[in-house]
């Protein structure tokens, strides 16, 4: 923890120890997931070290805990940003009360709610849409040949950014309280990053379409004594045409609202029937 000093500046009452505990407590965010309020118990759980420090007496503790048990839901990997902001706000709230001012406890939840949606959008497109896809793309191509390296690469490609964001997100969120999202939104940096992350994801997905989807037609037509190998025709037009056509066709079906399960069974049936008839 190189920059602990920045965190524990003169104003802060939070010790590095509290941040360490909060970091570890951010992992079981969804342990008590239930439909009505989703990740609420998990969010309160990670606030406990900071709240304990701020509110040792039962009455204040009760207010604070109830405040953090309202509905919450976001991408797990980026939750610590919000936790950091919430800790900073709780601390400000406590200070305002000590100064005899009327704090606004509801603002903590207002900010949490305002952050969880947009951050989930960003988090989903980076972690689900980019790091996971690149990891799975590279991982599957190695693992398909039986190499354990594929599994290791998959976990690393996803988890190195994941753990960095989780660790530094807490500090950045805390340090800049409210201001960090404003400054990042200026000039649309976050939006621009999400856009290019999608581009990167698509290049990898396109490559996977070519290397992972396998479809060939072994059918040989004999017309007037001449043998025509159908697959040669396809290869002559453009190699890898059939897998591309299959993928785009499947995409069209999904766009038209066909269910994933229906398409899946359809493929299996087409595969079996085609194989029995000797077409595929």
């Amino acid at each position, binding site marked *: 923890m190189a920059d602990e000093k920045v965190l524990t500046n003169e104003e802060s009452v939070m010790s590095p120890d509290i941040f360490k505990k909060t970091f570890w407590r951010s992992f079981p965010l969804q342990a*008590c997931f239930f439909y009505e309020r989703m990740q609420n118990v998990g969010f309160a759980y990670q606030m406990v070290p900071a709240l304990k420090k701020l509110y040792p007496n039962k009455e204040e503790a009760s207010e604070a*805990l109830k405040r953090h048990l309202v509905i919450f839901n976001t991408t797990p990997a980026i939750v610590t940003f919000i936790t950091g902001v919430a800790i900073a706000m709780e601390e400000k709230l406590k200070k305002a009360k000590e100064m005899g001012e009327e704090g606004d406890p509801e603002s903590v939840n207002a900010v949490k709610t305002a952050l969880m949606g947009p951050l989930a959008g960003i988090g989903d497109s980076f972690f689900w849409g980019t790091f996971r896809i*690149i990891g799975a793309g590279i991982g599957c191509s190695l*693992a398909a040949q039986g190499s354990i390296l594929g599994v290791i690469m*998959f976990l690393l490609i996803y988890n190195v950014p994941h753990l960095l964001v989780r660790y530094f997100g807490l500090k950045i969120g805390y340090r800049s309280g409210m201001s960090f999202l404003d400054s990042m939104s200026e000039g649309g940096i976050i939006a*621009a990053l999400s856009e290019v992350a999608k581009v990167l994801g*698509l290049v990898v997905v396109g490559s996977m379409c070519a290397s992972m989807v396998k479809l060939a037609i072994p059918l040989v037509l004999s017309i007037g004594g001449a043998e025509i190998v159908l697959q040669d025709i396809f290869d002559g037009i453009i190699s890898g045409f059939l897998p591309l056509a299959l993928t785009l066709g*499947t995409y069209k079906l999904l766009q038209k609202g066909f269910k*994933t399960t*229906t398409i899946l069974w359809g493929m299996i049936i087409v595969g079996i029937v085609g194989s029995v008839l000797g077409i595929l």
Partner: protein
Amino acid sequence: MSVIQAVLLGILGGLGIWDSRVMGLCMMERPLFLGPVVGLILGDFQTGIVVGASLELVMMGIVGIGSATIPDTVSASILATAFSITSGLDVSAAVALALPIATLGQLVGVLVRTANGYFAHQADKAAERGDYKGVDRALWGGAGLFFIAYFLLVFLGALLGSAVIGAFVDKLPQSVIDGFSVASGMLPALGIAILMQLLFDKKNVAFFFVGWALSALLGVNTVGAAVIGTTIAYIMFQYGRGRKAEPAAVEAAGEMSDDLGGEL
């Protein structure tokens, strides 16, 4: 399959669901990781890796975005890999088997996420008392319920399923088994198509074909495509910053659909 192996698979099921519950979602719930571990437990590591990779390609589109409960990849990955190893099934047959299991797992998931209301209520009570430890206990209560439910699902599935599946596979004609093999080459198209739904918009559609052309026509592997994709993304980002991004682009990040591929 011995009882001990079934117990180990059950524990793997509990740990698998714990990845997204307790361990912060580190991708250890995915078939690409679970497959090899199943392979280790059943003594066929190599097959585990290969089956895990194939299952990952098909299930790649199934992701837990938003609050929807999705078909359960944990129990489906473990049991499908296990059946594939114990009865020498082709991957696509294993995928076909995984379907009903995933649906059953989804049902278990819905039950647990409903029953967790009890522990959430305990957390409310603890908050009322200002009792920090009570909130901790409530959280771990929910975690425990998840573990037990998925342990039982996978343990029972492994113990009861493998004999039934084995007997069934012996009766399948060869042409059907070949057909499964053809289908397993086609199935990744579905996983990829679901991903395309997540990533496509009018502006960036061309990059899919860039990636495809790199591999299909130029023979670049996925690692190479990722490197080239990163370069393109970097150039675009620098260029976009230079001419100041338009405000309209700010909305783009929030557009993601909540229920991607929620049917499998």
